[in-house]
């Protein structure tokens, strides 16, 4: 009886804790559905919005539920070029998620490596890294990204680069402060006393204990990256028109909104909101669950 609980492993315990919020569980499900929808967009979408052969300009700006002369039904209407909104949104979601997740992952890797090195090596290396981090964090994400793209120009790679550049510093700071706390703990001294090598202590002992804040921050940052990309695309500085993300879809529909054709802008916006919101709810719950102060 005692053993059921005592034998529990850390991750399972975290999940048991996570499960207690039904809201967060729903968000996790929604999040998974969105990710699956994005990954399988080419198979799920009723129409390939890039295929000029299936797009008919005469179908443009049809309201939701209309059908084309071919009998094809546009459940969410069509946009200015006559593309099926649902299909365009699925493809847009794919691009948005791709950009957000990839930039987030690379930023995590860079930030974690630099943060760990700064915390463990200390001295002038730490000072240098942290000055750069402070410098980066001193300026708002959107501004740095805007300027960067103003200089670099448009493109998926450039947007990803810009997003990495504005994000890595957050991870570096979080990992460093977590690693500094861990470094003070006696198990690190024990590892030194046992003659374990520096890289082994740094990556094998300290790093696994710094993952909790990285996971929480990573979730939130992916959401923020998706949102930032959408903003940049909306301002016309993000992705090129050939690769329409959700932000670009909203931007395209914006001019039609005032004339009552709300669906071109509204639906991609709602999908964007749902995506960012569900990821944030998951991240927020993870923060509670993985917070060492609350879990013990």
């Amino acid at each position, binding site marked *: 009886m005692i053993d059921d609980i005592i034998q529990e492993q850390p991750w399972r315990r975290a999940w048991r804790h996570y499960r207690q919020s039904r*809201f967060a569980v729903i968000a996790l499900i929604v999040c998974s559905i969105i990710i699956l929808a994005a990954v399988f967009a080419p198979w799920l979408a009723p129409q390939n919005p890039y295929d000029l052969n299936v797009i008919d300009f005469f179908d443009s700006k049809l309201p939701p539920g209309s059908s084309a002369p071919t009998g094809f039904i546009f459940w969410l209407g069509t946009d200015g070029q006559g593309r099926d909104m649902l299909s365009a949104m699925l493809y847009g979601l794919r691009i948005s998620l791709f950009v957000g997740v990839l930039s987030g992952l690379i930023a995590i890797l860079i930030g974690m490596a630099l943060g760990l090195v700064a915390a463990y090596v200390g001295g002038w290396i730490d000072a240098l890294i942290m*000055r750069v981090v402070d*410098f980066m964090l*001193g*300026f*708002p994400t*959107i*501004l740095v990204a*805007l*300027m960067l793209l*103003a*200089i670099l120009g448009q493109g998926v790679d450039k947007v990803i680069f810009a997003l990495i550049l504005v994000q890595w510093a957050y991870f570096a700071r979080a990992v460093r402060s977590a690693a500094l706390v861990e470094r003070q703990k006696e198990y690190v001294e024990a590892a030194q006393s046992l003659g374990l090598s520096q890289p082994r202590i740094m990556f094998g002992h300290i790093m696994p204990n710094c993952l909790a804040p990285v996971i929480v921050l990573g979730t939130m940052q992916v*959401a923020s990256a998706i*949102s930032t990309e*959408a*903003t940049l695309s*909306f*301002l*016309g*500085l993000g992705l090129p028109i050939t690769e329409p993300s959700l*932000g670009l879809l*909203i931007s395209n529909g*914006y001019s039609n*909104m*005032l004339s009552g054709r*709300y669906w071109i*802008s509204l639906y991609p*916006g709602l999908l*964007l*909101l749902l995506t*960012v*919101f569900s990821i*944030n*709810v998951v991240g*927020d719950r993870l923060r509670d669950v993985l917070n060492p102060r609350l879990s013990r």
Partner: protein
Amino acid sequence: MTGFIIRRLIQSGGVILTMTVVVFLGVYAIGNPVDILIPDDATAAERDLAIQSLGLDKPLLTQYTTFLSNLLRGDLGTSFVYNIPSIDLILLRLPATLELAFCALFIAIVIGLPLGLLCGLRPGSRLDKTVMGASIIGFSIPNFWQGLMLIMLFSVMLGWLPSTGRGELGTVFGIETSLATWDGLRHLLLPAINLSLYKLSLMIRLTRSGVREVMYLDYVRFARAKGLSEVRIVMVHIMKVVLVPIITVVGMEFGSLIAFATVTETIFAWPGMGKLIIDSIMRLDRPVIAGYLVVIVLLFVLINLLVDIAYSLLDPRIRLGGEPNDR
């Protein structure tokens, strides 16, 4: 304390210097600066003359020192579009942006602090759950889309508030502001709400987590054991501790509000420097971009400096130089 300020001043100087290098490289050295700095319709002779007069044939370091000395004189070139010195152009637009940012910050603080306090004091209550859920929405809604929806709802569908422009300006204490007229206020409301929503969510969360952290500490318990009234415990023992980090965050966030104003100003056609910068980026008006960056950097460094000083004034542990007690 003096040491602390001197230290911050030196660091600020470092930041400004680094940023001038970045601006210089970004605006003058990347790409072909000649194409950027000289109007397209110039003849070959004019180009050569311009290259010489701009010093573009000289080594990079010399160019940079020229750039720096020009900068010190407040000269960052003339806008191609408006044909006036870029710094003047930006300073002309600055008040509108500051006005917007101040109003947004005001909304965030006035609503955010009390809500966060209430939630923090009653964790797990229905109010707490509702507000916390809403705050996640608050920082999940992309700023620009939220702006569009505000216009859609309040301007297009309900027709209550105007959606573009700054409206009529009045003068208070010699400062032109839309806060002084009814029309100005009506124009200001939507953009201010748009800009403040994200910060409002942040303020609620910060206050709440600060209160939650502090309210279980021993000294709050000790204050209770002393028999102090609940009002004094919350307003003095909890809030005074919680406010210290919040005030610094407020300062930092003011800077971020100015940056985010670019989006809001674009949507609501607010004539601030944020809209100017987006327009300039679109038209590749690089002198204006450079000017904007320099002004923003100075503004940010100034804000950070003030925040640090405020922080050290508020927290006795820092103010008094905090000599380590043990070991």
